[in-house]
């Protein structure tokens, strides 16, 4: 880790976004993670995505649990709201916050231990409840904070740093998210920002449960020969389905593609997800086909990445429950305390 803060001086030609901020304005404290940690690249991608989308930092709530990944919200969006919860409990804290104030942008940051082990149930339920959020798992397949034991996402047959072979089946969080109804599902790699940044942007603009499984090599404990989450292994086996561009309404379309090469998905807020096909016959709006393809390619030893599934017309928890539109902290007393007559009516309806 570095002991000095990152110098405040920046490139003199650093561009400003629509809010007048530079990318550096979206940074947080300097990382205390090991040098070379994939998580730092994901933090950088989040910073880039938020800057490009001109998101007002104070309209973001970043939530996390425990672990290396869950430390990272300290390293980006220093001017945003944040909550560092108990191990594995980020999803329910995020759900609660979202219930109370749907106007904020919710960014859940978690790891494979936090989401696939101790918080597996929480992860599953937040997805199936369709909480409107961006849920990023920084997946390194190892318990880095406790020095490199296999995690629940370590692939069967992969080797630990000291040579032990993992005999347990791995949890595929992308598969679970697809099954449980996530309406935006992607996988990416911390070492490929060209792919990752647009995926995060798309997720932030997606009005439903958006899940990104981001493979993020642990340089200290899981970047060796025999690991399936190392920089080299992921680069060799990465099979990208598509390349995403997030087009906001006002941006002119400059690149031309041959017919059939591009698939556009217009989201509810008018943003367009433009997917350049890299893989013949892959339909990112077909959930069943996506699951099938995922299993098939995994069996072939490939790591499928890209935007794997998107529902252009998602519904979120608030729509399911019919909750009030305004944040609870913006409701006046009359709405919050409807009085004895209202209570009487409710009771009568239940008799």
């Amino acid at each position, binding site marked *: *880790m*570095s*002991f*000095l803060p*990152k*110098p*405040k*001086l*920046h*490139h*003199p*030609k*650093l561009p400003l976004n629509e809010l007048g901020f530079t990318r*550096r304005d979206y940074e947080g404290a*300097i*990382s205390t993670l*090991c*040098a*070379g*940690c*994939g998580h*730092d*690249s994901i*933090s*950088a991608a989040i910073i880039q995505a938020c800057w490009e989308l001109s998101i007002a930092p104070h309209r973001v709530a970043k939530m996390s649990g425990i672990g290396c990944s869950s430390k990272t919200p300290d390293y980006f969006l220093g001017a945003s709201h944040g909550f560092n919860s108990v191990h594995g409990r980020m999803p329910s804290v995020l759900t609660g916050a979202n219930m109370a104030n749907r106007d904020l942008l919710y960014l859940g940051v978690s790891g494979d231990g936090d989401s696939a082990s101790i918080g597996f149930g929480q992860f599953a339920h937040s997805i199936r409840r369709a909480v409107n959020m961006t849920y990023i798992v920084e997946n390194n397949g190892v318990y880095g904070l406790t020095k490199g034991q296999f995690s629940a996402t370590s692939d069967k047959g992969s080797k630990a740093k000291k040579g032990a072979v993992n005999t347990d089946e791995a949890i595929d969080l992308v598969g679970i998210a697809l099954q449980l109804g996530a309406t935006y599902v992607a996988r990416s790699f*911390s*070492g490929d*920002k060209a792919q990752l940044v647009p995926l995060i942007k798309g997720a932030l603009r997606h009005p439903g449960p958006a899940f990104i499984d981001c493979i993020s*090599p642990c*340089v*200290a404990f899981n*970047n060796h020969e025999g690991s399936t989450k190392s*920089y*080299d292994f992921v*680069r060799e086996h990465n099979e990208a389905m598509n390349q995403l561009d997030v087009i906001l309404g006002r941006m002119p379309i400059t690149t031309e593609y041959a017919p059939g090469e591009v698939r556009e998905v217009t989201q509810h807020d008018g943003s367009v997800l433009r997917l350049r096909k890299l893989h013949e016959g892959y339909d990112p709006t077909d959930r069943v086909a996506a699951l099938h393809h995922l299993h098939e390619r995994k069996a072939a030893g490939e790591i499928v990445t890209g935007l794997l599934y998107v529902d252009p017309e998602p519904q979120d928890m608030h729509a399911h429950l019919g909750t009030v539109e305004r944040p609870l902290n913006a409701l006046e007393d009359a709405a919050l305390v409807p009085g004895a007559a209202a209570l009487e009516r409710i009771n009568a309806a239940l008799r």
Partner: protein
Amino acid sequence: MLRETSALKPTDIRNPDTFHKVVDCQWACPAHTPVPEYIRLIAAGRYSDAYLVNWHSNVFPGILGRTCDRPCEPACRRGRVEEEPVAICRLKRVAADNKSDIRGRLTPIPAARNGKRVACIGAGPAGLTVARDLAPLGYEVHVYDGAAQGGGFIRSQIPRFRLPAEVIDEEVGYVTDRGGVVTHYGQRVESLKALLAEGYDAVFVGSGAPRGRDLDVPGRAEAAANIHIGIDWLSSVSFGHVKEIGRRVIVLGGGNTAMDCCRSARRLGGEQVSVVVRSGFEEMKASPWEKEDAMREGIPILNYLVPKQVLHEAGRLTGMVFETVKAEYDARGRRRLVPSGEPDVTIEADDVLVAIGQENAFPWIERDIGLEFDQWGLPVLDAATHQSTVPQVFFGGDAAFGPKNIIWAVAHGHAAAISIDLFCRGEDVRNRPPPDARLISQKMGIHEWSYDNDVSLDLRFKVPHAAEEVALRDIALEVELGYDRALAFKEAQRCLNCDVETVFSAKLCIECDACVDVCPTDCITFTADGEEAELRQRLKAPALNMDQPLYVADGLKTGRVMVKDEDVCLHCGMCAERCPTGAWDMQKFLLQSAQAAPCAQPMAAE
């Protein structure tokens, strides 16, 4: 997305020029003074060491710390990432002001002579540099000068309120008073032919550009008593022959000599002193800080005025008339001054100082000795060796390629000394020795460096000045007080340590992007190779400063290249701190230009 385009050649970091260029200040310095090295020593309170680093490179640290034209400062990287460059020049003065007795640490002069005799014509910065470089090798150097003391224009032209005489005495003394050098002061060389006949093995001409350009307008001759050539007048002031000037003074010219003239005039009784220049204010040759200093002393600078006539009454100058002009540019961007149509401007005055340029003059060099001159009256020289068409005669300083400044004169002196040494040993003078360049890792611990990599956010500190009412009363009172030690430390901390280079080793890199993410100035990109012009556009921050080179390395596993734009790198070492494999290392690049004699002292601890 690898493209089939011609690839950029990987950077050869074993070529000393590669990293030398990154040290912008040192690269820009004609004498290639290792600037960051001495600034770090000042920050560490090691003033004598800092002085010696300077002395080795530029011979006159105390003098230059007050008067240098500072080509280093406009080049300073700090000026590109923040508002102003590091006050390099004034930090040099701090080293000179605060050092202890360093005489015992200067390059020793051997008692035994090597039997060769060299004559230096002119005891200015160029000639003294030649003497300093050659004496330690056993040469017997004879320095001739028409003045009674050494220093040349340093002594005669620069006013005492900018440069006290003690500083000149001290630093000239380090050259002339330690043996090996024989001074012939008060002895102007009137014939090169006669000097050559004295059997010197080599002669160095460092006689300066001693002729001030004159004014040619109506009334010039009639009012001659009140019109003075700037450099001659300055030297008369310097030697105490002139002690006063009229109440109203016009100074013609826009160079540093004009600035010295107007400020001297202010101190000798000039109450209404104005500087009048033909060109625009921005195009003036004077350094910005010299213009500032003049204006601070209540001297207006009037521009776009061309002298038309000198007004006089009964042999006394009464003023001058100027034509008002404006600049016009032709299709090729060349400037022309044309009448603006506005009425002429008349300025009343008692005296006029003419500082509109200097010329070379060699009336003492016979034209029949084989020494060729070009159409501008300058000697025909080899630009690198300074050798003239008479093989044993070498030129340097203003006498060589026309008027420049002290630091260029020093650089010429070093180059000529190398030539003279080679010549006297019978070797080819074109066979130039390479610089001494070293690259040393600064790594001390996992994230500890032997330099202070914390980047200061302070803006440039102003140098304290003496109160104006006191300063203007005494021409010998130094105006600038110099930084005190505390201020010097803070200013020194603004230095970005550009000599601590980011050295990349592709075979160690795992392409994790940690350096890319942490770099505060977006210098680093890993990308597909391509042609430079196109590649510069698609870096993380487009590299638009074409003066600054790209550092390109290939040999990465993915087949991409690492490209670092050196332009605004802060040398903070964050890339190396965040690198998990040590593919980046911070290594100090220490370059000493070649000199005839080896270094006085081993450089400061690595």
